């Protein structure tokens, strides 16, 4: 990967959401957070001061802005020393980040945005949150929470139960 030419300003990566809104993060942050960016930048010989643009045109601005916010925060946290305090602060920040104002639709949009640039840290965080939402619940409760249509006939359901008699369903 080409090094930044001396004297240049910080190179940025820009995500473009639906409606043409731009959200920027420094290239160093993108490299830490996004597998796609790492792989893409490996292939680029020389970019000069150009900004890398990533179009996420079918995702709303809010989840894209949250994605950039997450990447910036994780990159900053990675540079400070690890300690039990730091881990606790990170957990608290994650709680607030996916707070009560984040409804399911936003959660899935956020996940879609994270998948688009392969931001593994955010993908893990949202998936853990969804798992937490359904842990210990009955199948009907899970369907309600996750918005899943039950399209199994009673016969099909019986067949599944028989096939899987080694667990309690």
């Amino acid at each position, binding site marked *: 990967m080409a090094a930044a030419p001396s004297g240049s300003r910080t190179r940025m990566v820009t995500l473009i959401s639906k409606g043409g809104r731009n959200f920027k993060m420094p290239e160093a942050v993108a490299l830490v957070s996004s597998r796609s960016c790492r792989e893409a930048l490996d292939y680029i010989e020389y970019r000069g001061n150009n900004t890398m643009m990533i*179009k996420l045109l079918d995702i709303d601005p809010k989840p894209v802005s949250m994605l950039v916010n997450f990447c910036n925060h994780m990159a900053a946290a990675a540079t400070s020393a690890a300690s039990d305090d730091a881990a606790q602060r990170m957990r608290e920040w994650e709680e607030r980040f996916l707070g009560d104002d984040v409804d399911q639709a936003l959660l899935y949009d956020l996940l879609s945005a994270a998948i*688009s640039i392969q931001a593994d840290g955010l993908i893990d965080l949202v*998936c853990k949150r969804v798992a937490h939402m359904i842990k210990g619940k009955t199948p009907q409760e899970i369907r309600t929470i996750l*918005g*899943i*249509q*039950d399209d*199994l006939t009673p016969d099909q359901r019986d067949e599944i*139960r028989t096939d899987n008699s080694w667990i309690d369903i």
Partner: protein
Amino acid sequence: MSLEQEAVSRRRNATPEAIIGGGDGIDVLPDEILQHVLSFLPVPEAVQTCVLARRWQHLWKSMPVLRVTGEGWILNRRGVRKLNKFVNHLLLLRDRTAPLHTCEVELGTFRSQDDPQINLWIRHALLCQAQVLSVHLSRDNNSFDLEDLPLVSRHLTRLELCNVMLNGNILNFSRCPALEELWMRDCYIALDVILSQSVKRLTILDCMFYQNARTRISIPSLVTLEFTECWGRTPFLESMPSLVTGSVKLTNCDDCCGKEAGSSCFNVSNTCENCGANNDGNGDCVLLNGLSEAKSLELIAKPGVFIFRRDLMRCPTFSKLKTLLLNEWCMKTNLSALICLLQHTPVLDKLTIQLCEAINSQMVTKESYNPIELPFATKKLKVMEIKCETIDEKVHKILAVLDTYGIHIGQINIHRSIGSSEDFFSGIGSWTSSTLESEQALPHISGAGPPQPRSQSKLPLTERSASEHD
């Protein structure tokens, strides 16, 4: 395909079922993501999602991540049998063409004559191309044997073991050519050799080594080594030409002799390697030879541990070493150990010495010293750091001896600890520091009479306090 086109297509192409299903529930997401969610559930609950809807019927069968956890439960005999039945069915009935990426087994205490069939699950996971394998048992089960056959896998990259017994050939990784990271904690290691041609990072914490002979660590590919607070006999490190960073902390090992701490030898039956004619038989360095290619080293030993000092009798040259951290052990016999190391570290830039007041002050003897001509090239250190609880005669002695040998130091930082000595060994505590800037060698400090307080030196002194432990 440009990055932006890829990003869009990754999302659009992944969910044909979502387009059929419609709605804005979780079905908008691709299968791999749903399976990622399932991997964070207890495995029984993940399997139970097969009744949610048609799409979910078979998702659990190709989950790439398996986490078998005991959820903190104590398993009795019935519990162990139930666990075995469940996991065995799971492994048999999952889709064998779907590779397993990660397999984690984390079990609490099991009180049972029946063991969980962990050995079987490990071998099955490896057959399913697992790249990451982790077995964490609880301390109450610290006599659980892992099967002593070598592991075989072209895909395994990381292995984590906690609280298991390791015997025979289990740590012979010659048939795991992709293994890069080996992490072990609280294990009992009773075998001849830990062998790998590919491991780059080795971490051994709080493990107990076989006490009758030294285990050999033969990992020529190693880049990073962390060896902390192990018990039993310190293992023998073979040559590691790619080593960059090494951290060795010897606190509880059997290689201890009372004479090191200023009293008499307390080893029974005259088998002490430090006293008398007894030694390993080959007379080689146990640790320092293997560490000699590193660029950065931390060598810490509690009083009484003789390994480092004994290795110095056959000290190798550390031709790439730039950063070195030591504690009190280097101060024995008028810092002869420190001087020996400085003679064998031609490119050293930064030296840090950590001192702890509670350490027996007999470490520093009161003999006068005779500076002798040494075949030193003009030695230059860019930075010298001393971390201590009080700035006492030990600190002055270090600076005096270095000055006597004509060692030029660019900058001296003195950090005072506010923690206790126990904190020091466990790596917590905070420091205040003062910095001396100097372009020339320190003025000579007389060895007779009381040490001069720092403020009387001709060099400017700036106080700096750090609230975080660095």
